[in-house]
């Protein structure tokens, strides 16, 4: 992907989704481990 006005938007969306996925996985792992 080369540079365009959308690169920052792509980064923001990707990072936001990564954070939300991480929180979800954190809750799932905590629930599984502590049972």
């Amino acid at each position, binding site marked *: *992907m080369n540079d365009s006005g959308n690169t920052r938007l792509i*980064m*923001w969306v990707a*990072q936001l989704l990564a954070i939300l996925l991480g929180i979800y996985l954190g809750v799932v792992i905590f629930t599984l481990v502590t049972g």
Partner: protein
Amino acid sequence: MNVQKCVSDGVEVVRRRRWMTTRRGGASCDHDRVQYISLPRLAGAVIGLVLIASGITMMFLGMRAVMDIGGYCASGGAYVIESECPNGTGPVVILGLVGGLIGAGIYKISSVSLPGTNLLLLAWSALFLALGWNFWEYGITAGLDVGWIICGVLFVLIAAMPLFSRWSPRRPGP
């Protein structure tokens, strides 16, 4: 040779060409300011952020589980334990800590040449604000506990440290 030359402020700059990036010709370093999203680096940044966020979440939840039983606990050993740690709390907090640190390393390496905002230092604030929230919540709702409120104040101050650094969240770009 995989080397690029350009001129910046009258000084010739020679740099090694970055992987997966292209340069649009010309002799001005301004072209280096054109930023690209490298898919492997984006994937690394995403994986790093997932590890950081899941690590902070696990530490947050593990801390709450311990605070639910009074704020301290122990497991194993030869002595009789008054407050046994909730099942799996210790491993999950350690897992969150190690996973978060590994994720921070992966994100740091991967996000170097990516455009946009670098969130790494904000992870510091996120961690201490999340844990500080627990101190505030348990210090106020479960009867006024000055000790925990002091810890909450300290954690908020620690979380605010990036505000006083010379760090800029914006990567150099156009």
